[in-house]
């Protein structure tokens, strides 16, 4: 439980790191933080134009159907890609100063969480404009966000540490994320998957998370809580295992960088 004491002692550094991640991202671009809105909006626009043609589905309000899944996916995607690089990118200070190394993946994941919470304003806007609105199912939403955050934190511990030893991971992740995008029910709905492949799809935690977002926001129904809690439990295990791997690998960071 040393980690909590350590993080508490270094809370100021954690705060400045989160701020630095958040501010630094769009610092040199003309439109600045606006890009964190514009980027996903353009992406949404493109997908909303392209996929109805390809999939020939008759989903009502496809744009809303898409946005409730696409924004959480972007949160996952950016968080994972950035945290894979976060230790290597900060090699300079790791080699010269001591601080709890876990601050770096935590800061990356958390700044992405903040970014996601801000951009989710657009999701709610879309829900109201389209007339779908919100139901009381939305009370479960914070839990789903928490589960996703725990999952991402766990994965970022593993990936950021492994990237130090094998730099390819950083690039491999990009490819895997592209694959995972199509393996999660983002542009299509979960019940379009042939039932004989369904168990395979269900191994992907993002499959469930995306489905829950859509259940809550688009269909306005509360997901089956038993399986939500099971997923929470699984993600906590990923976090604990991820942290243990990180602890094991962090000892040689300064030498490998």
């Amino acid at each position, binding site marked *: 439980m040393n980690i909590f004491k350590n993080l508490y002692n270094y*809370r*100021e550094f954690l705060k400045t790191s989160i701020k630095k991640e958040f501010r630094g991202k769009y610092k040199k671009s003309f439109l600045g933080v606006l890009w964190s809105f514009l980027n996903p909006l353009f992406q949404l626009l493109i997908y909303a134009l392209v996929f109805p043609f390809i999939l020939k589905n008759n989903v009502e309000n496809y744009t809303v159907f898409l946005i409730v899944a696409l924004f959480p996916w972007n949160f996952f995607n950016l968080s994972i890609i950035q945290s894979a690089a976060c230790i290597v990118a900060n090699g300079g200070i790791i080699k010269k*100063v*001591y601080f709890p190394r876990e601050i770096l993946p935590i800061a990356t994941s958390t700044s992405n969480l903040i970014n996601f919470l801000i951009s989710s304003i657009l999701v709610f806007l879309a829900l109201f404009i389209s007339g779908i609105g919100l139901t009381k199912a939305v009370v479960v939403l914070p839990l789903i966000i928490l589960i996703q955050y725990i999952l991402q934190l766990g994965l970022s511990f593993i990936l950021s540490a492994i990237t130090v030893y*094998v730099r390819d991971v950083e690039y491999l992740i990009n490819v895997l994320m592209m694959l995972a995008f199509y393996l999660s029910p983002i542009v299509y709905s979960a019940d379009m998957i042939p039932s004989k492949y369904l168990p395979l799809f269900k191994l992907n935690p993002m499959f469930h998370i995306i489905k829950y977002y859509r259940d809550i926001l688009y269909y306005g129904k509360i997901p089956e809580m038993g399986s939500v809690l099971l997923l929470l439990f699984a993600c906590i295990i990923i976090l604990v295992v991820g942290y243990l791997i990180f602890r094991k690998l962090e000892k040689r960071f300064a*030498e490998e960088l």
Partner: protein
Amino acid sequence: MKNSCVAVEINNMSKDFIIYADKANTLKERIVRFSNNKKEVRHILKNINLKINKGETVALIGVNGSGKSTLLKLITKIIYPTSGSIKVHGKLASLLELGAGFHPDFSGRENIYFNASIFGLTKAEIDARLDKIIEFSELGDFIDTPVRTYSSGMYMRLAFSVAINVDADIILIDEILAVGDQRFQEKCMNKMLELKKLGKTMVFVSHSKEAVEFLCDRAIWLNNGVIQKDGKTKSVLEEYIKVCG
């Protein structure tokens, strides 16, 4: 009771570095060079046993490559020992390399916050020390310009000012003071003497005989990764000079 007066305790500690002739960082390189990757294990520190008591000011001396900086890095936990253990009792601040933990695009003032937070201070604690740090660094108006515009002497002044003002119990300083001008070096020496009187523990790497004699009661001579001699500054220095000139 015994532990309460010990600041740093090192038991049977060894550190090896694995030196690759050409380090493979990517998978491709790893596979291609799988068979002919020359690597060599270098024993940097061999079976070090060391106890530094609270309030002691210790100089580490030795020729280049004898393991002094590695020992400091091990004590700060930047790297970890291959075997054996290192225990540190108390809050530690280290000044190992020039401008470590500085962000080149941030101003001196912002870097004080950034750097001091790496040492584990909260914002309120830094606020309270800010004026003292700026005053000691003698940077004046430069404090609000980005540190990439600083000279190495200015870098050192800022880094030193932060490190001695974070109220650490143990302060580790590598050979960096040499960058400052004569007057500032003397100022640092006096400040360190002041800290010593306050009962702080200091470990100090230096090639300057005068500085070591001025400041330290104890000197440790590292030679090829082993402690050659450990004792009163005067006697260790005498022998060191006899052997190494």
